[in-house]
């Protein structure tokens, strides 16, 4: 007992530097950004005059920010859906004892080792309207005029230019969800599947009633990981498309960077980042909450 108490004290002493650094440089600066977002600091000189929600009001009335939020939501939904459905499909193929499994697994996982900047440059060339796959289609005799990420069409608020970005991002992260699902599938006891088969369940029924419920926690974690990547997306869009004509491929991260460091609008930039934090928190907090509750039980 005495010993445990001493260990505990030591643990706290050792943790204190780390915790204080964490609180200062992460939570402290988040609080600082929050404070700045309520001020009039919109030039190079700090101006801490309290202006309430003015910066937020300015943001939500700006066409660029409205487009950004729409882009983020659409991008997140499609990116998550494609990665999860596609990743599950791939992992199920591998799980079904496909030939050359380890080779395929490596191939699918490989894009994950690239940085988003590399991915962005690659796919920018591929989707470049005059020299990319459009040129390939033209060689085959088609009249390829789709502008990909330069297209300014939009359907129900969805800018079709995002398709190019969604493909690039999904290409990179589908292998990751595949690996997660594969680990989950490997954990399902064979007897369970076999007994279902003996009871006459078809493949679809096995997937729907047995596999999917078992790997539900994995789907959940994958959504969290993908969700916070896509809500904070910056590097991919920055390298691949920039903000695009009429902001068709713009995201809050790009807007924040330009507002703060090109336009010297520190308060508005802080407001954008606080909104981004809020969006990510919407995804992360319920997850943390459920995990902590699980731990407590």
């Amino acid at each position: 007992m005495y010993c445990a108490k001493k260990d505990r004290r030591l643990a706290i002493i050792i943790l204190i530097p780390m915790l204080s650094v964490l609180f200062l440089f992460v939570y402290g600066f988040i609080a600082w950004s929050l404070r700045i977002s309520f001020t009039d600091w919109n030039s190079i000189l700090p101006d801490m005059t309290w202006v309430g929600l003015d910066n937020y009001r300015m943001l939500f009335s700006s066409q660029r920010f409205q487009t950004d939020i729409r882009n983020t939501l659409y991008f997140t939904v499609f990116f998550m859906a494609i990665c999860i459905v596609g990743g599950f499909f791939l992992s199920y193929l591998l799980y079904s004892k496909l030939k050359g499994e380890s080779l395929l697994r490596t191939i699918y996982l490989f894009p994950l080792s690239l940085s988003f900047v590399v991915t962005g440059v690659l796919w920018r060339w591929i989707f470049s309207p005059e020299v990319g796959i459009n040129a390939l289609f033209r060689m085959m005799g088609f009249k390829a005029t789709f502008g990909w990420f330069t297209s300014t069409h939009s359907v129900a608020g969805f800018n079709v230019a995002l398709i190019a970005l969604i493909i690039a991002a999904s290409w990179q992260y589908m292998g990751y969800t595949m690996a997660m699902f594969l680990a989950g599938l490997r954990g399902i006891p064979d007897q369970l599947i076999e007994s279902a088969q003996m009871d006459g369940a078809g493949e679809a029924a096995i997937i729907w009633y047995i596999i999917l419920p078992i790997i539900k926690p994995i789907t959940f974690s994958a959504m969290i990981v993908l969700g916070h990547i896509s809500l904070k997306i910056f590097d991919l869009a920055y390298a691949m498309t920039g903000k695009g004509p009429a902001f068709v491929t713009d995201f809050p991260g790009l807007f924040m960077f330009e507002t703060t460091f090109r336009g010297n609008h520190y308060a508005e930039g802080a407001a954008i980042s606080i909104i981004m934090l809020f969006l990510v928190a919407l995804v992360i907090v319920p997850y943390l909450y459920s995990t902590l509750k699980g731990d407590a039980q």
Partner: protein
Amino acid sequence: MRKRIMVGLLVALVATTMLFAQGAQERKGPSKTLEIFSWWTAGGEADGLQAMINEFNRQYPDIEIINATVAGGAGTNAKAVLATRMQGGNPPDTFQVHAGHELIDTWVVSGFMEPVTFILKDAGFMDKYPADVIDIISYNGEVYSIPVNIHRSNVMWYSPKLFAQFNLTPPKTIEDFFKVAEVFKANGIPALALGDNEIWAATHLLESVILANVGPDKYRDLWQGKVKWNDPQVRKGLTDYTKMMGYINRDHAALANMDAAGYVAEGKAAMNVMGDWAAGYYYSQGFKQGVDWDWAPAPGTTGSFIMLSDSFGLPKNAPNRDNVIKWLTLCASQAGQDAFNPIKGSIPSRIDGDRSKYDKYLNAAMDDFASNAIVASVAHGAAVSEPWLTRVNDIMSVFTTDLNVDKAIAEFQAAADRYAPKN
């Protein structure tokens, strides 16, 4: 025992951090240095800077130059680093900055800079610069930076081959432009190449079109907030811009500005409005003037010269102030500018550059610079502050797509109301 080891470890840890802190404090450096901060990391501009540094070392062999560069397009990253250093009280000795409002509104108005008028006066250089240039680099009667070079923004690059093929002459006015553009369009050739992957290229085109419609005096007033955006001539400029968008290459949003300039030399498009760094690009790619490319002032802007300029200034509390003054004197001198500019592909901001060192295009630009009305570029930070320019670029991003003149006028006016100098 274990406790003792742990305590020892902790002490060692703390001691190491203190050691580093000590090191940082003692890093004062000898006084014989000069730190030059820029985003000139590659190509002609880096070589030009090096040529100027060599010249400096020849004159002052005992001063060591620290060439601090931060890579990144149009200096965005460098500007972010600079802002941190200036606000943190750790300014570089001198830094590259676009002359005009980019320097003045960001750093001069906020009190970070020392005037450098005395450098020009002491060296007897005041009358070596055109009055319009002195005006652009001054605030409240004091000069705040030394411009080392001048680039021209309102240049139309064209393909002599294509113009010969259809028996056309390069347009001198906006009306002529639309006439020849119609011919090219009828033959399936984009009349105007645009590469607005980075939107400033669209702003760059717009400033020439507005200038063509309003003339140099009104152009200056427009960017001072003294002319309203619903002025008929300004409106005509914006309308002309929307008409021009009917003659551009389809892939404009995917191209960089240099790709668009390249389209002209490759005969894929007839004309392009871009700054005169395009000439340097053509030379470097082996394209021949008069054969693959040639130039004229942007349609309707003959007699005017939209300038932009890189300059160096003197921050307050610069660690090596005396050395900065030596550097700025070199930047302002004929020797310094003639070392830098032929390599960078720009003309000196002085009127007495050594003509024999410059190529054919630059000599022609020097002629115009000496005789034309000089106005400041918007797209390159000379005419407006950075917040204003950021907003203008945002407006252009939508305007280039939706071509809604009324909406653009309202938004430009709102931006002018918010950001134009108040006096």
